[in-house]
Each structure stands twice: as structure tokens, then as C-alpha cells.
């Protein structure tokens, strides 16, 4: 009886359906759009790299380029190098990092570990937000007004570094903040439960856990500020000589060399500008690679 009714039941429809045509079409459309915008975004970057390398790479293949300055060369003489500007860029970037990184990390630690949602923390976050929107020329003019006009300091590489500090702090605060936030609270609690004081938990557990990411963030930020142009234009004079003193005298840097030598409207100037552009890109690339190498070495391992 029951078997008879079972046999009379209609065959069950297949449980799974095919992907219908409209969904397949939408999927293809989305794939094309995403791929297309990717190519669109990539095109200017590739174009820029090809142009810079095509015009400048031949000039940096020379050992002199990396070891000599332009001292004593007129604007019609080929030869010399950009050592003076490389030193300037590295020195200014380094001084900036030495000042900005500790401040920024402490600010981020305050915001994530201590301030939480307090009024002061909100005010600090707001300030950092504003600072990250400040154009580099405004930062440069602020330092000019503060240090040079008001405090009477001479124009110097150090003033440049101070302006770069203003640009670097918000970037490092933001990345460090995000990285500290993703350190699970369970690790903090595990440390507290062992009788570890809060500050030690932060220094020995929380920061080391986030360290690899923080290093990447810092190296990206350094690379970023080394290409800034407004501060060097406003706050330090250009020179073709090598200067190691950040507190006095003119000091070249790659962006400054490029804007200065751009005024030399002949093949010599062109060679210097494009060569410096390649050099700057190379230095920034090296910094990024170095950053990701260190961050890989310090990253968390499970095996």
C-alpha cells in the first residue's frame, strides 16, 4: 500500500540548479570592470616608471654619480654626482624618523592602551586626523614661522626634519594604532593574570606582537617623507657641496636638487634631474624592501 503511493509520487526535481544566465552575465561584467580599473590604475604608474628609467637610468650607472657631488661644476659640464643630495635626503629622513617614530608610537600606545574612549583620547585622535590632512607646504611654513621667524634659528636641514616630523607623525600613529588594536585582548589578560604590570605587558607582549607591522608602517612613512619637496624648498638652501651638518648651512637633497637643476635648461640639467629622480625612486624602493625584510624577520612564526 505504502509502496504503491511512493511509486506514484512524481520524480523529485533535481536538488541543485544551474547558475542562471543573468548571474553569469553579472559575474563576467564585474570581473571585466574590476580588471579594467586595475589596468587603468596601473597604467600611469607603469608609464611614469618607464619614462623615468628611460630618461634617467643611464646617468646613475656611473660610479661617480653615487660618490661625488656637483661641487665646482658649471651648468654646462657633465659629470659629478648626487652624493651630496643623497646624504641630505637620508640625513633629513633619519633625523625626522628618530624624532617622529617614538612620539608617534607613544601616542598610539596612549590611544589604544590607556586613553580608550576618554575625552583626551578623542581630542588627540581629532588632532592627528587634522594633522594628517595638513599639506606639506603648510607644515613647512609653520616650521618657518615658528623656528626661523620667531625663534631666530637659521634655515637648516634640521628645520626640514621638523617639518617632516609633522607629516610623519599622523601616518605612524594611524598604522600603529590599527596594529595595536588587532592584538587580541586575550594576550593582555594572559599577561595580567601572570601578575605582569600593565606597562610591562605593553612593552613586552603587545608591542612585540605588533612589531612586524609597525616596522613596515614606519619604513613606508620614511620612504614617503623622503620625497617631500615643499619643506626643503622653504626651509633650507640648495648647494652643490657636501654638507653633513644638519644645524647649519645649505644642504642638498634629491627633491631639492631636482627643483633647482630643473632651472638649468640644457642637456646637463636634464640629465641631473632625471638621474636624481631614478636615484630617489631607487632609495625609496630599497627602504621599502628593507622594511619588509625586517618585518618578515620579526613576524610571528608558528613552526
Amino acid at each position, binding site marked *: 500500500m505504502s509502496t504503491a503511493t511512493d511509486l506514484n509520487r512524481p520524480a523529485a526535481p533535481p536538488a541543485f540548479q544551474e547558475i542562471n544566465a543573468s548571474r553569469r552575465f553579472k559575474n563576467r561584467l564585474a570581473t571585466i570592470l574590476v580588471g579594467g580599473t586595475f589596468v587603468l590604475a596601473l597604467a600611469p604608474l607603469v608609464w611614469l616608471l618607464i619614462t623615468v628609467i628611460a630618461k634617467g637610468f643611464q646617468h646613475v650607472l656611473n660610479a661617480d654619480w653615487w660618490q661625488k657631488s656637483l661641487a665646482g661644476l658649471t651648468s654646462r659640464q657633465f659629470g659629478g654626482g648626487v652624493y651630496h643630495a643623497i646624504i641630505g635626503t637620508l640625513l633629513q629622513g633619519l633625523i625626522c624618523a628618530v624624532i617622529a617614530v617614538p612620539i608617534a608610537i607613544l601616542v598610539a600606545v596612549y590611544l589604544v592602551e590607556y586613553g*580608550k*574612549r576618554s575625552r583626551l583620547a578623542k581630542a588627540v585622535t581629532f588632532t592627528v586626523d587634522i594633522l594628517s590632512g595638513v599639506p606639506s607646504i603648510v607644515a613647512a611654513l609653520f616650521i618657518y614661522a615658528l623656528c626661523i621667524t620667531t625663534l631666530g634659528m637659521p634655515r637648516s636641514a634640521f628645520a626640514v626634519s621638523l617639518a617632516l616630523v609633522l607629516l610623519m607623525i599622523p601616518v605612524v600613529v594611524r598604522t600603529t594604532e590599527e596594529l595595536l588594536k588587532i592584538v*587580541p585582548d*586575550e*594576550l*593582555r*589578560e*594572559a*599577561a*595580567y*593574570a*601572570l*601578575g*605582569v*604590570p600593565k606597562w*610591562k605587558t605593553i612593552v*613586552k*607582549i603587545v608591542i*612585540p*606582537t605588533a*612589531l612586524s607591522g609597525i616596522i613596515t608602517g614606519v619604513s613606508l612613512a620614511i620612504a614617503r617623507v623622503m620625497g617631500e619637496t615643499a619643506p626643503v624648498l622653504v626651509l633650507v638652501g640648495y648647494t652643490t657641496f657636501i654638507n653633513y651638518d644638519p644645524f647649519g648651512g645649505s644642504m642638498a637633497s634629491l627633491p631639492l636638487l631636482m627643483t633647482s637643476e630643473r632651472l638649468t635648461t640644457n642637456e646637463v640639467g636634464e640629465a641631473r634631474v632625471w638621474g636624481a629622480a631614478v636615484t630617489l625612486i631607487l632609495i625609496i624602493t630599497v627602504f621599502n624592501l628593507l622594511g619588509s625584510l625586517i618585518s618578515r624577520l620579526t613576524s*610571528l*612564526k*608558528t*613552526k
Partner: protein
Amino acid sequence: MAKRIDVKDLNLFYGKFHAVDGVSLAVPPRNVTAFIGPSGCGKSTVLRSLNRMHEVIPGARAEGKVLLDGEDIYASTVDPVSVRRTIGMVFQRPNPFPTMSIRDNVVAGLKLAGEGDRKKLDEVAEQALRGANLWAEVKDRLTRPGGGLSGGQQQRLCIARAIAVQPDVLLMDEPCSALDPISTLAIEDLIQELKKDFTIVIVTHNMQQAARVSDQTAFFNLAGVGQPGRLVELDDTERIFSNPSQKATEDYISGRFG
């Protein structure tokens, strides 16, 4: 070493929310006390208040007394850090420090407290790992990261880490809930071992586990959603599971709850 705990009229709050109401209980030394009860009744909250981990959560606060061998851990002069050094804790999810090796995880408490003698640390590490029944499995890879162990091994690593600082009391919040039955048994055996040296309080949702490992059982319950949780009764585990004095306890244990 092992000390007794006396809780007197403890009220626990999260901001304005009154989470636990008027708990009083006593835990004798060298004894395992199990906390059971429905989800949200405040077992973890009470447990965390026993070593002042409750107040780590922003806005959380405790009223009442928790006496450790007669000394109030909530007295205004007491440093919570020193309380936590005396009363260790193992969490529901294993949480080894990801930046540290197995050995460093175990001795983290001592190392961060300033102990620098390598030989002593090595000794403590071995002792604690033996104590946590993990030594045989990890003795050849002490320098490997703790995160590379299996879940059950990680949990025993966390127990080793907790006992390495030689606390008087060990608090465990559902230490087996993320583990398979075999690792669970390993940890239950371990609790029986640890009982010789420590006072242990364990939260569990597993009735059989409470019956197997504990000497006395506390049943917590809450009257309704948004109401504070409270201690219904605390008695010898045998009595709780055979002949509880409260109807609510009997209903909960026999599965007739709610």
C-alpha cells in the same frame, strides 16, 4: 602554599549593569570547586573577580570582600598585580604569547618579573611542563613557537605558564571547552594532580566534568534576562549531583532547566 578563599557578599557590576548579586562562598585549600550554571549567570564574572581580573574591563567594578587566607584582596592598599601573582588563571581559549618560544611562554611570568637566571628558568620550565603533563611532548622543541602546538597542547602550555609562577590558587574558566575528549581527560587528570598543591576553582558547562573533578560544586542561576546572577547553592559535589537541596539545582542538573 595553597590558600583558602572566602567570598563575602560580593556584588559585581559592568558599568550600571548589576551582573552578580550577593555571592558568598568558601573554598578550602587543596580542593577543587566547580562553578556550574546556565550561560550568562555570572560564573566567569565571579571567577574573574577572585583575582581582580574583573576590573580590567572598562567600567567593571566589584563590591564586597574576597579573603585569601583572611586577607582582603580588595582592600584599598592591595596592589592588584600582586594579587594576580598569587592567584593564577587559565582561560577558555588557549592564549600562548605568539612572540615567544614554548620555553619562554612557560617562564614568561618569572622573566617579566625580572628573573634572569637562565639555569633557574630552565629548571622552572621543565618542572612546570612536567606538572602540566606536556614535557614529554615538547622537550625536543622548547625553542619553537608556542603557537605551533595543537589546541590541547597549547592549553596545557597555558596551564604550565600559570603554575610556573607558583600561585596559591588556580582559576580555570572552561579550560576544556575548546578541546577534544582525550585532551580533556588529560587536563582533568592534571587537575587531580594539581589539587595536591593548589586551590582550584573551575568553571564548566560539562556536568560530568564537574562530577569527575570537583570536591564541591557551586550552582549559579539567574532569575531572568537582565537580572543579576546569584549563587543558588554550594555543597559537596556528591550531594549536589545526588540530592541537591534546591529545586532549581535539581532541575538544572537533570536537564529540566528552563
